């Protein structure tokens, strides 16, 4: 389906905001102004923003550690996310969970991320099953990395999603590495879309750095799920542009590989296209960029100023 010009400019804005957040976070952590570790998602903006925008308001998503854009599109404000990164009481986990972990907020239809791979998958399947069993026209979406795909729970989830025809969409973020481990040390062949055939699940391979293509693929999958057509697997071809986490210099990634992918930068991609098509002007998009920078600086200020949790609350919330 065709996205309106407004929506595509909006997409550019979300991707720019995501990129601005990421750049600022990386800078802060490198300056030692962070707390604990943090994961850069640089290069994944098209995937996470497309997922966020293709989902309906009542749908539910379980983003993983590089899906920053999805959180933002779903309405989690940058100051809350920085709050989480800094262990502040204003973060969605109130200082309990680290970096993008655990940032769940069901009022925004977001499931908190669990480190243990691939926990997000069976959980999201359960969300999808609740929609199916209750006859609700809602969809649940999650993402898995190339690395997470080789984990047993992924197999169990895809098998059950297909068996039960659950309204479940899975995006495989093939960013070529699991930490330091390249694809060819993870599996013999990395044709994820084809692997979905083992589960009789329809699948498609998409350029994960092309927002329009990603949006179309995710929308198609969500639409199929909503109409009772069961699950979809989307293989998103992309690249992790920085280290696994900020402390990781990623010397193991060949320079020429990064060079090649730089030319395919998802944010630049969309900007170029919007300009070529004359959907937007340089001035417009520069303004969008400036707004993003501003929002992020404000968010950081708010988060830095926010209080740390009160030690006396340690035991709160162990039980519901």
């Amino acid at each position, binding site marked *: 389906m065709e996205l309106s010009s407004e929506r595509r400019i909006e997409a550019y804005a979300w991707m720019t905001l995501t990129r601005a957040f990421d750049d600022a976070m990386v800078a802060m952590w490198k300056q030692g102004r962070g707390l604990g570790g943090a994961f850069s998602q640089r290069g994944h903006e098209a995937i996470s923003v497309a997922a966020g925008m293709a989902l309906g308001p009542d749908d*539910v998503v379980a983003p993983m550690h590089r899906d920053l854009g999805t959180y933002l599109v779903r309405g989690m404000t940058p100051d809350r996310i920085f709050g989480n990164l800094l262990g502040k009481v204003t973060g*969605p*986990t109130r200082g*309990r*969970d680290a970096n993008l*972990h*655990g*940032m*769940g*907020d*069901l009022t925004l239809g977001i*499931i*908190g991320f*669990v*480190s*243990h791979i691939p*926990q997000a*998958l*069976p*959980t*999201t*399947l*359960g*969300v*999808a*099953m*609740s*929609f199916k*069993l209750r006859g609700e026209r809602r969809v*649940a979406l999650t993402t898995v990395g190339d690395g997470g795909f080789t984990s*047993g*729970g992924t197999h*169990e*989830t895809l*098998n*059950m999603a297909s*068996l039960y025809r659950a309204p479940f969409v899975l995006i495989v973020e093939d960013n070529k590495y699991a930490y330091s481990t390249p694809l060819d040390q993870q599996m013999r062949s990395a044709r994820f879309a084809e692997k979905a055939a083992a589960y009789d699940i329809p699948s498609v391979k998409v350029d994960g750095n092309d927002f329009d293509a990603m949006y179309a693929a995710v929308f198609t999958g969500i639409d199929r799920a909503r109409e009772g057509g069961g699950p979809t697997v989307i293989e998103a071809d992309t690249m992790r542009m920085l280290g696994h986490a900020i402390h990781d210099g990623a010397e193991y990634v060949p320079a020429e590989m990064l060079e090649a992918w730089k030319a395919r930068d998802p944010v630049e991609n969309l900007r170029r296209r919007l300009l070529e098509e004359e959907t937007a002007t340089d001035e417009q998009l520069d303004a969008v960029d400036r707004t993003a920078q501003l929002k992020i600086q404000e968010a950081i200020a708010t988060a830095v100023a926010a209080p740390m949790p009160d030690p006396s609350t340690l035991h709160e*919330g*162990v*039980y*519901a």
Partner: protein
Amino acid sequence: MNDNFGFSEAPASGGRTITYLEAISEAIAEEMERDENVLVLGEDVGGEFGGAFKVTRGLAERFGDDRVLNTPIAELGFTGMANGMALMGLRPIVEMQFADFISTAFDSIVQFAASAHYRWGGKIPWVIRAPSDGGIRSGPYHSQNPEAWFVHTPGLKVIAPSTPADAKGLLTAAIRDDNPVIFFEAKPLYRSIRGHVPEGEHVVPIGKAATVREGSDVTIITYGSMVHVAGQAADSVPDVGVRILDLRTLKPLDTEAIFEAASATGKVLVMHAANRNTGVGAEVAALIAEEAFEYLDGPIVRIGGQDTPVPFSPPLEDTYRPSVDIVAEAIKTLAAY
């Protein structure tokens, strides 16, 4: 004897008496009737089959296949699926075919369900039913008592009933609880004991132990099938006044009741069928040694499964497992201390 695995029958104190297994089935059916969010899932639980132990027999016919869901062999996956269902307000009752296979679902329990609420407020109102315990010649893989792994893990609730009435009342409470609750059923009790269970709704609060026998000489703190072994041992030493505390809930522990029971006699025997080493009994003994030290008139004796896998052959399993004789001996020694 052979038929009830050496467990004494609970006295039928008037009214109808039903088996431990019937009590569990009843609780599930009544809660499914009461709340359409309650559903059952697991291996072979559905259709006319109704599970390896037939606990869910008849439910599919009554409530439909959607609410009694057969799963593939994928404990990690279907327990994770239950996590997601629970987050959306469903109340899944997950059956592990045997408690032994709960280890296969470990991450979905200890890493996701246990901490979701603490980390971000995600409520996980499921119950895992786990047919546990041995003594019935089922070998190392169908006799385990793995409760200690989960009592050690923050955020879970753990229950282990010893009677039909508690089985029904605590399972009902567990299904209504907003937290992940692991419900250990003592499978040797399934058909071997009958007991009085009130008609209709019957709820036993989670976190409350019960004094099931009064006595002023020695206190036995135990749970599950061992409550019956403790009772038989106490019967066999009539000259010793044995007080028995049935913990019923293992997490959170009823520490008040534990300290009261310990101080009442000053002589404490803690026992369970699970491996003794770093078992729940160790926690109970350690709590008493710290909080009720002044009241102790003797060493805190612990009896539990040996530090070996649960062996299959009768001479070995009978040595592995706490017996009436061993407990009776320990009672006498403590009383004489």
